[in-house]
């Protein structure tokens, strides 16, 4: 292959052939218009994609960020105000809060509830035959690593069954007392029937009551 020196005259000679081929095509007005249009569209597309898009995206993102931050700032201020208000209210009622813990203790406290029910029965004049707490969860200990997966409920409940014997006024007083007990319990079922046992009078009744008691896990 011969080495041709790269000077201006050689280049002109080389590209002259292409010019010669393109000249008749370019001279056609329709072809010229169509080529111009195609290249214009291509240029517009390229500029839109590589220049206008990132710029417009940055502008819109910044505007959105300003709007979001303004809203966030307002929400933060509202929350701070609410927290200050809550703190004030908390300071006011702080000394009375143990009442809430007595109503909804952080632990099941089944023994305390059973004691309260026994005391209530004594006050009402009924005698407790049985108090049964079927199951009580042990708090503060995770049995398995999988136990973490279950999300804790804000309020847990456990059943408790009580069997009493006594006369009707005593049983009524017991139920009324149960409903006015500070520890929150709800009555699931009540079953009253005559107590047929030796040594008991005919107007003695047996009350079987199923309760649900609650405790707070938060």
């Amino acid at each position, binding site marked *: 292959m011969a080495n041709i020196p790269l000077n201006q005259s050689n280049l002109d000679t080389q590209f002259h052939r292409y010019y010669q081929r393109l000249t008749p095509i370019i001279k056609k007005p329709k072809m010229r218009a169509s080529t111009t249009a195609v290249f214009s569209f291509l240029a517009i597309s390229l500029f839109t*994609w590589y220049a206008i898009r990132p710029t417009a*995206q940055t502008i819109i993102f910044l505007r959105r960020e300003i709007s979001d931050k303004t809203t966030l700032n307002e929400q933060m201020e509202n*929350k701070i105000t609410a*927290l200050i208000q809550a703190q004030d209210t908390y300071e006011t009622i702080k000394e009375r809060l143990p009442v809430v813990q007595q109503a909804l203790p952080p632990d099941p406290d089944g023994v305390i509830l059973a004691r309260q029910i026994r005391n209530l029965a004594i006050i009402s004049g009924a005698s407790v035959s049985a108090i049964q707490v079927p199951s009580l969860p042990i708090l503060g200990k995770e049995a398995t690593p999988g136990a973490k997966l279950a999300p804790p409920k804000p309020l847990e409940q456990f059943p408790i069954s009580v069997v009493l014997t006594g006369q009707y006024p005593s049983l009524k007083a017991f139920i009324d007392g149960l409903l006015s007990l500070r520890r929150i319990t709800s009555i699931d079922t009540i079953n009253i029937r005559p107590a047929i046992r030796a040594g008991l009078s005919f107007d003695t009744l047996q009350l079987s009551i199923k309760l649900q008691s609650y405790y707070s896990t938060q």
Partner: protein
Amino acid sequence: MDEERDLLLVTIFTTLTIFLWVFFELVKTSKTSSIATPLQKVVSPLTGKIDITVIDELEKRSTLD
């Protein structure tokens, strides 16, 4: 002649596609929140009022301890 027209049409449709693409990308940018989800949870509204009547009611009840 047909080739010229086809080329022109392809270019026009390409340009239109790019316009639409850019438009939807800009819409997506404008709709996407720039605040992280944990922060959104932090600023969730809080009621500063505590229902004191409930405590009053509870105080009236007996404990029988």
